[in-house]
């Protein structure tokens, strides 16, 4: 696979358009959004047949389905922006882990049901704040994808938030479990709001919002849920991860090995 694929260097041959970011930058930004949806959707799919109750099996599977739907729209668009003939399938199934651009919170293992719920609340609230602003994106296609997705994300947060309250304000055992999951996952949230050159460029072109704004909205949305769940918001730590630049935890490789197995073993296989 060419080294230029998915790196943060501008794709050769891409030219800057007068009123928007160049296609290479748009491609890399869309990968960040699409990969988060894809990887989290794949993670939730691991619960199929293993959830604590049938209702939760359905709930997590439905959220996974919405996320895969987002990923399909975003990765198809990314492939077109890249202009090398790669479609959603090539991008999902034939990229190496270093070419994935999701924040590493999304790839963290499911753990117990409480841990999955904590990860979900953190990401649902982030996606909701981000996508509500992306509805006003200067890129009409991204705005349409966001407007479509945001309605579904509201239901995701209602589900995950409802469960976090029940578990946090539940038994001693359930409280202890979600509290330790929250402490363990919190440091990974810093990356969601750490603005780099690409995020800044997208904001300057009006394609994406400023991440500081998303961060403030995220906290406003999260704090009442945590309070109702009798959980304390963990303290921020200075370190930030770099999944958005392709530096991932060991967990992503295993996830991709499972997700990509069929296309790797039987290239071009179709249903």
């Amino acid at each position: 696979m060419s080294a230029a694929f998915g790196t943060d260097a501008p794709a050769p041959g891409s030219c800057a358009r007068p009123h928007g970011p160049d296609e290479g930058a748009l491609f890399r930004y869309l990968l960040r959004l699409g990969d988060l949806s894809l990887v989290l959707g794949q993670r939730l799919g691991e619960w199929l047949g293993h959830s604590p109750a049938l209702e939760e099996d359905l709930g997590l599977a439905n959220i996974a389905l919405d996320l895969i739907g987002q990923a399909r729209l975003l990765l198809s668009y990314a492939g077109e922006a890249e202009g090398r003939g790669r479609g959603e399938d090539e991008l999902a199934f034939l990229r190496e882990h270093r070419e994935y651009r999701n924040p590493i919170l999304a790839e963290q293992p499911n753990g117990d049901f409480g841990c999955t719920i904590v990860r979900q609340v953190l990401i649902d609230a982030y996606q909701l704040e981000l996508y509500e602003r992306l509805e006003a994106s200067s890129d009409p296609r991204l705005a349409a994808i966001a407007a479509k997705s945001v309605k579904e994300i509201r239901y995701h947060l209602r589900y995950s938030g409802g469960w976090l309250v029940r578990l946090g304000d539940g038994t001693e055992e359930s409280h202890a479990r979600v509290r330790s999951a929250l402490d363990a996952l919190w440091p990974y949230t810093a990356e969601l709001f750490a603005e780099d050159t690409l995020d800044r460029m997208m904001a300057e072109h009006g394609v994406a919002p400023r991440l500081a704004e998303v961060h403030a909205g995220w906290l406003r949305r999260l704090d009442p849920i945590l309070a109702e769940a009798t959980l304390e918001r963990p303290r921020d730590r200075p370190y930030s991860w770099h999944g958005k630049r392709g530096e991932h935890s060991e967990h992503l490789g295993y996830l991709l090995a499972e997700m990509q197995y069929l296309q790797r073993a039987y290239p071009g296989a179709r249903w």
Partner: protein
Amino acid sequence: MSSLPARPQSDAGRRVALARAALASVDDPEIPALSIVDLGLIRSVETRSDGTLEVGLSPTYVGCPATEVIRHSVEHALRNADVGAFVVNAVLSPAWTSDWITAEGRRKLAAYGIVPPERSASSMRDVLRGDRPVACPRCHSIDTECTSEFGSTPCKALHRCRACLEPFEYFKCI
């Protein structure tokens, strides 16, 4: 065609009417009591200047597996209806809303045992905040509870009636 000379305008009108009739016969694969027209999934049926018939189709949920099936069914129905050259475009914006389910569609949903979405999606924030009870489709009691936000399809939630003890599905407001 009659012996009258065919005018392009009337021919276009005829093809659109044929297409609309064909689309009304396409049922939703997961709620077969309703057609895709009842669900408000057909956004437009027009003829382009080059004569191609253009159908705008909205997906309900971005990841709904029925979307692909619906698309194939639409193409199949249009081919059988002999409407000539056509394209089916996915319309994302404006995003589909449960408000677009027709009055007829709501009636069919209720008759099928699925409670139609209660409030208009324009007040969706209120819907998500408030916990307004959904009336049981069988005994009409409002002593019901939501057992899961997600049902057998993305568009439905699972509820249970505490009065008659029957479970039922609610078509979510979105």
